[in-house]
């Protein structure tokens, strides 16, 4: 009686098992809530961290009496967030956008985009006033320069800065970040509001 060839099925099934393993490991991408529990936590400031601390600071600013002295909405210039940490990959743009949009939507603050050195500068403001000599444009639709159509100067500036501290005990390392925001009255030069966010601390192994 001839024995069945047991070796052949093993050889055939080996690639099949490998394919199954490979497909199991290579799971397809899925959409997640970027600030929810499925979000990846790194040692730096993640998307959710940035949104959380920027939003929290803005809410504190809006709940303070800092802007009561001005006629609202107060015109402000927004200065780009300074990175005073050793991490070059901080989500600066996310923080800028969240601070600006939160303050703007509150109805208490508006930002000028006419200043070249301010974050959110829009060259269209100046360009639109330079069309007065251009025959290509209907002159009745051109923005006039001069006192009647002058751009308003900002009354306050909104400034933000990332700060960090690093510590290690040899086996573990801790990086702690915080966001500082302060508002300056441009007429007097006085800081009228300042606060730091709650710290975002991350621990990892060396």
């Amino acid at each position: 009686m001839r024995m069945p060839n047991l070796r052949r099925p093993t050889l055939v099934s080996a690639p099949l098992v490998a394919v199954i393993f490979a497909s199991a490991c290579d799971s397809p991408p899925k959409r997640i809530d970027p600030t929810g529990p499925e979000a990846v936590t790194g040692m730096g400031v993640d998307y959710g961290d940035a949104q959380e601390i920027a939003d929290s600071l803005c809410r504190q600013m809006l709940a303070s009496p800092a802007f009561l002295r001005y006629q609202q909405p107060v015109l402000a210039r927004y200065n780009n967030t300074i990175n005073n940490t050793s991490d070059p990959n901080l989500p600066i743009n996310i923080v800028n956008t969240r601070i600006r949009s939160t303050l703007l939507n509150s109805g208490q603050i508006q930002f000028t985009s006419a200043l070249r050195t301010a974050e959110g500068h829009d060259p269209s403001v100046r360009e639109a006033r330079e069309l007065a000599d251009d025959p290509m444009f209907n002159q009745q639709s051109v923005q006039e320069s001069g006192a009647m159509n002058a751009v308003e100067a900002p009354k306050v500036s909104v400034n933000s800065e990332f700060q960090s501290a690093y510590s290690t005990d040899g086996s573990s390392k801790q990086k702690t970040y915080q966001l500082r925001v302060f508002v300056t009255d441009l007429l007097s030069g006085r800081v009228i509001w300042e606060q730091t966010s709650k710290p975002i601390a991350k621990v990892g192994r060396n």
Partner: protein
Amino acid sequence: MKSVLSSDWMRLALLSLLVLLCGCKATNTVSSRHPGVRPNAIDVSYKVDNAFLALELKVISAYEEVVNGLINAQINVRNEGAGELRYMWQVVWFNKSGMQVPIEPVTWTREFLAERQDGTILFTAPTRDAVDWRVTLRKWERKE
């Protein structure tokens, strides 16, 4: 006599063990009883879909005030579970017509509470049109 002593010792040992097991990371709290404080407490409804979380994270009260025309709200909570509690909260706002105020992204805010620690969930209306709010609580389970 011997049995009484041994039962006393047993009770003391059990109590000590209980304190060691449950109380290592618990907190003690000192708070004022200032008679001038009259918090503007509001009625809240608390819909519990996660009974386990509700047992750990107890919602005690909620306060509201209006600052600069914006509603400022505070929910007072306490960790009544065993050990540190990590949770997340999210708030959405509604206008007087009941429509959600479109603020994106709606973010989850992460919080820690030590055992028996009191905490606050603080949030401010995004606009003056935002008159009502709803807060969602969930456990913050870390992605490993």
